[in-house]
């Protein structure tokens, strides 16, 4: 792009030499800072022929008043606007998909849908039509997959007008919905599958397990009592009866003295906290300001719209300029509302523990699908076969936490995604590890590694 710009310059030699010098200076300037300049030139080409997305280009520190900079900027702006205006939204008649907006139900309807987008968007009704949620409708229109129409006379079938993008934006019922749509389309463009959590039938917490789970609940209480008992053991009297013989014993007993809120880590704990949560929510409903906006699945060609598996992530939306940042209580109630593939649970077959109408999802799958799932699990196990040391696992636990959700923070059109997780520092044994000595004895290993590296370096030099 740079060369093109320079070749378009005037023929005047003086100007040319000046500019090439200046441009040389420009290009060697320090610009590691923030690489966010958008090079729309490549995008314009892309609008004509499908290619790979261009890389971002270079930027300058500040305007220096030279013509070179001004032409570069002029070209950059022009290409940007050309790329936008030369990529019209729409369809050729052969692939025409008409979607009708319904003001009353605030949805879009496609009577005869064509294309693969229906695999994970919309719902099929009894008449075989695809009903789109409003955000799905606007996303498909912006993408140029369907053409929006509005019927204004029910008696006359041909009485329909074509809607524009502006018309569709005018139908957003509140700005929260528009913010939700922005997050939806952002993630959709990245290939994720998104749906509202309200209509999902699959759950990790089937009501039959929760109500019959009183035993677990009691066990939990008993466990807490045992803890109190243990703490009382750490009295001066105890020192006489059971004197400490090593540092390790001191540390282990010290740990019992630290009080902490309990973090949910196992399936049984998850089920029991959800049971408690149910009792709480019945008493005091949580304020409706913060709710899970979308369930998020990683791209998956075998995605089932009717009976999906548990989502991989759950996402909340927060408008920075409109709302106060959620409080600790808000976060707490959200953590208890989460219902997704809790990735910290090891060795779990997700189809077995996710339930649809209180029946395990595994039983609902056809034999063919079961085979496919088993094949997938087998592959995953193969991948995860690598043994990781306890130290690394502990660091991972501390860093990643347990239950988590994603908070999309919106600031006037920009979206930042933040992961918020429950961490547990209190029960992790970070100061004392009996295995550490063994690991340390492996310091020879690191020496070996170093010697290997030096060997490699030598061979490189030899080459």
């Amino acid at each position, binding site marked *: 792009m740079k060369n093109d710009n320079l070749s378009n310059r005037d023929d005047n030699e003086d100007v040319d030499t000046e500019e090439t010098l200046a441009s040389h200076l420009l290009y060697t300037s320090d610009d590691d800072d923030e690489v966010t300049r958008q090079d*729309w030139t490549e995008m314009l080409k892309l609008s004509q022929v499908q290619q790979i997305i261009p890389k971002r280009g270079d930027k300058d520190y500040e305007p220096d008043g030279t013509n070179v900079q001004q032409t570069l900027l002029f070209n950059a702006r022009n290409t940007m606007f050309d790329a*936008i205006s030369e990529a019209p939204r729409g369809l050729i008649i052969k692939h025409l998909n008409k979607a009708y907006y319904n003001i009353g139900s605030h949805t879009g309807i496609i009577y005869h849908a064509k294309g693969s987008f229906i695999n994970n968007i919309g719902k099929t009704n009894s008449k075989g039509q695809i009903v789109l949620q409003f955000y799905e409708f606007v996303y498909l229109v912006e993408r140029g997959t369907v053409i929006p129409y509005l019927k204004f006379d*029910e008696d006359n079938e041909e009485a329909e007008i074509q809607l524009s993008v502006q018309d569709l934006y005018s*139908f957003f019922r509140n700005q929260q919905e528009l913010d939700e749509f922005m997050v939806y389309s952002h993630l959709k463009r990245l290939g994720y599958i998104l749906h509202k959590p309200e209509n999902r039938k699959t759950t990790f917490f089937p009501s039959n397990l929760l109500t019959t789970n009183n035993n677990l609940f009691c066990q939990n209480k008993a466990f807490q009592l045992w803890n109190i008992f243990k703490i009382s053991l750490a009295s001066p009297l105890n020192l006489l009866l059971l004197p400490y013989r090593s540092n390790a014993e001191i540390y282990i007993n010290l740990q019992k003295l630290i009080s902490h809120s309990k973090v949910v880590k196992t399936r049984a704990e998850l089920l029991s906290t959800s049971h408690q949560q149910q009792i709480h929510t019945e008493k005091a409903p949580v304020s409706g300001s913060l709710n899970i906006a979308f369930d998020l699945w990683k791209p998956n060609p075998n995605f089932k719209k009717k009976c999906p598996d548990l989502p991989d992530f759950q996402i909340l939306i927060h408008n920075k300029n409109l709302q106060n940042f959620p409080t600790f209580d808000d976060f707490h109630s959200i953590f208890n509302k989460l219902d997704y593939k809790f990735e910290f649970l090891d060795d779990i077959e997700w189809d077995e523990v996710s339930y649809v109408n209180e029946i395990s999802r595994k039983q609902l799958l056809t034999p063919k699908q079961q085979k496919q799932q088993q094949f997938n699990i087998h592959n995953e196990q193969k991948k995860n076969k690598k043994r990781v040391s306890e130290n690394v696992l502990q660091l991972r636990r501390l860093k990643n936490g347990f239950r988590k959700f994603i908070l999309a923070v919106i600031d006037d059109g920009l979206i930042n995604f933040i992961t918020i997780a429950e961490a547990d520092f209190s029960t992790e044994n970070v100061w004392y590890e009996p295995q550490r000595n063994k690991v340390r004895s492996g310091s020879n290993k690191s020496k070996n590694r170093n010697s290997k590296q030096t060997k490699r370096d030598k061979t490189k030099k030899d080459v």
Partner: protein
Amino acid sequence: MSKNNDTSQSIPIYIADNLPSLPVTNDDNVTHSDIPLLFDIQAIKKLRYEMDILGVLIGTLPSASQQNLFLSIPLRLMVEEAIWLVNSGKCYFKKLNYITNTGANCDDELPKKYMHSIKNLQDIELKKYMKRQFEYKYKLKLEKEAQFCNTKVKSDAMITRTDFEKHYKKMEPSLFIPISNTSSLIAHDEHSYRKYQADKEFSDRMVRYLYKRYKYDYVVYKHLREYKREQRCVEDMEEGKDSDSERFYISPGSKFGGRFIVYPGDPLRYHSHMIIQSPKLITTDNNSSDTTDGIDLLELVCSGRLGTGVKKTCVYPFINVTKVAKDITTDQSSIDNCSFYSIEWSGFG
């Protein structure tokens, strides 16, 4: 209120109003949207070229629909930006949700006659568009055939009616139906006097409403926007030319933990220099109920470190609450109601 009373020359910024009240907002009576949008490419161009206004493109670019770096229409403006544009007479607010707000909440109540006339207009335009496409494609096809047979096609050759009837049906499936960005429903009734009056009243009401909610951020924005930076390069100084003055480009700043980010020129070409933090409020009036915001040392260290890391200066605006006007009509740009302090990590130690 806008200084320029002629709305025909200024640009419409679309904003929704009379929405069902939201549970999320702090103010329970709020029924308006805070999202100003633009749908016309020419208007967006004008804003960028003539007024140094950026906004954020939020629509999917249909030619590359699987990425988030390059987006398309509509353009979402910052609220402060929109208030400034309208208050300085360059733009005016226009109602976005005109259909759902005109009492036509279900299909039966839509004014059928009006809709029919729009449908007719749309049909005529689409037919014209299709014909032009056909002509272009047909000519291309003829040229290809001629190339194959080594003959020439006359450039001004007319397409006869028989040709049209013969080939149009064959070619029809490959013709393109576009989705327009701007609404034909709203443009249809643009020129009537009553409409103009309604727009002006709406625009004034929205500005007043938004100013009430965002006045402190707006004061900061206004100072940054109206500050003229002298720009003199070495060559100009040698030749004794007058210096150009340039304005800052401002965009939302949550990516760097601030309220705004300030660029010395168009961000397409230049790095940003400053992160403007949310304003701190101070009062000089001892009798007022407002309290003065404190400065958190850790916050300073945090922003100082961040600023050094990303090579930007952190700026803290301080606003004298007693000197900020309560209503936008009495708002006058005075220097003494806002002061800026920049934070930098000194290179000692």
